[in-house]
């Protein structure tokens, strides 16, 4: 059976998300050197790079950034046929007292964010952790909500939200694909 595909965000909308996210993030701490953006692998890392570049253009300041690989904190390690690949976490600054902004492409069940929160707290005690996502697709299984999202769509469990970013996929866009 052919898959049904619907484009929900085009490149211009993703650019707009980057600009709005940058504006919002700057409101979350009076001191820019106290804000750090942490991207969840893989596409969250690219979004962090774009947001930081936008802030650099606007304010002339380069914010601190980090990368999270949440594999070792997953709650479904026992359900996998083999240990999933670990690709490394890079938090090259002291998180104590910082405002950390967690960035990912999609929030769905909330389990990835739960794992990311647990991991971040193992680095120290930040002042606050905020969540920024490009797409909130509903379907939460844990009490976790984004502080800023680029778009909200209500999806069903038979659907996949596919985020394409030029750095990874050669083009920008967000699509919903129906499996049946």
């Amino acid at each position, binding site marked *: 059976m052919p898959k049904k595909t619907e484009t929900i965000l085009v490149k211009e909308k993703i650019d707009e998300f980057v600009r709005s996210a940058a504006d919002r993030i700057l409101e979350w701490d009076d001191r820019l050197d106290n804000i750090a953006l942490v991207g969840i692998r893989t596409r969250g890392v690219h979004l962090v790079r774009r947001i930081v570049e936008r802030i650099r253009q606007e304010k002339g300041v380069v914010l601190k950034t980090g990368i999270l690989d949440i594999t070792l904190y997953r709650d479904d390690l026992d359900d996998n046929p083999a240990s999933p690949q670990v690709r490394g976490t890079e938090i090259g600054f002291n998180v104590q007292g910082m405002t950390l902004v967690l960035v990912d492409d999609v929030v769905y069940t909330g389990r990835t964010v739960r794992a990311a929160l647990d991991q971040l707290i*193992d680095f120290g005690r930040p002042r606050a952790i905020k969540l920024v996502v490009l797409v909130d697709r509903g379907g939460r299984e844990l009490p976790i909500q984004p502080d800023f999202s680029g778009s909200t769509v209500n999806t069903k469990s038979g659907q996949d939200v596919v985020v394409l970013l030029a750095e990874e996929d050669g083009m920008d866009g967000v699509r919903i694909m129906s499996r049946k």
Partner: protein
Amino acid sequence: MSWHRKHLLTLEDLTREEILHVLDTAESFKEVSTRSIKKVPALRGKVVANLFFEPSTRTRISFGLAAKRLSADTIDFVSAGSSTVKGETFKDTSKNIEAMGIDIAVLRHTAPGAPKMLSECIDARVVNAGDGPHEHPTQGLLDIFTIREEKGKVEGLNVLFVGDITHSRVARSNIWGLKKLGASVGVVGPATLIPKKIEELGVKVYYDLDEVIGEFDVINLLRIQLERQRQNLFPSIREYSRLFGINGERMKRAKPDVVIMHPGPINRGVEITPEVADGANSVILKQVTNGLAVRMAVLYLVSGIK
């Protein structure tokens, strides 16, 4: 995914891709030891049993700490002096420990093949922590990891092992691993301590260290097991040290950026003088640090296989 093994028994068994997968995974685990809380929850609720039927300090502590940093519970079985535990007794001991519900058994034993035998008689995953003179796969992996970190590659490097090759499980695991990753391997030592058929592994054999020392990028010094001297395999410690010990004078003939390794414990003044062991070319303590990351990676990878 390039890891499908329930046990890590030898490096002879592993493919080039599997070795690289462990090294890459270890790379990610190195970062965990730099955190404020040096622990990840990956093996929470799992039990790792360290079964050491032969003395060991470094390896046992390293595996114990690696398991703890993965949030596993650990139990230590140390059979002081009972190195002759074999056959049914060894099997029974293992069966009993397994009955307590362990997930991973880390085994050090004097008998070559003991880990393989254990893997065939219990359901838990088995990691070889050294089986007699046969293999010491995690030591081989951590040595190769350290070489790659220092030199940025393994392929095309010239690596020399010095000393007692015959009784060295460290050399054997390293040779299997290094050859698979495309390094050239040489061995040098007293003729009585070099196994007859070693060339069949694709290794070059030398007897004069001074003649060849300048050709190598990495020199791995094997511990002289002092008990061997009593078997008259070489005339005296002093003569060994004069011919094969690495000292400041000998270092002048080596490449300026040569990497000096030793699996420990070192006999200062025998295989290596303090000025070299503590000098700029020595990575001996980095090997220990890397060993922790490599063992975390191995425990994580085997734990995922049903």
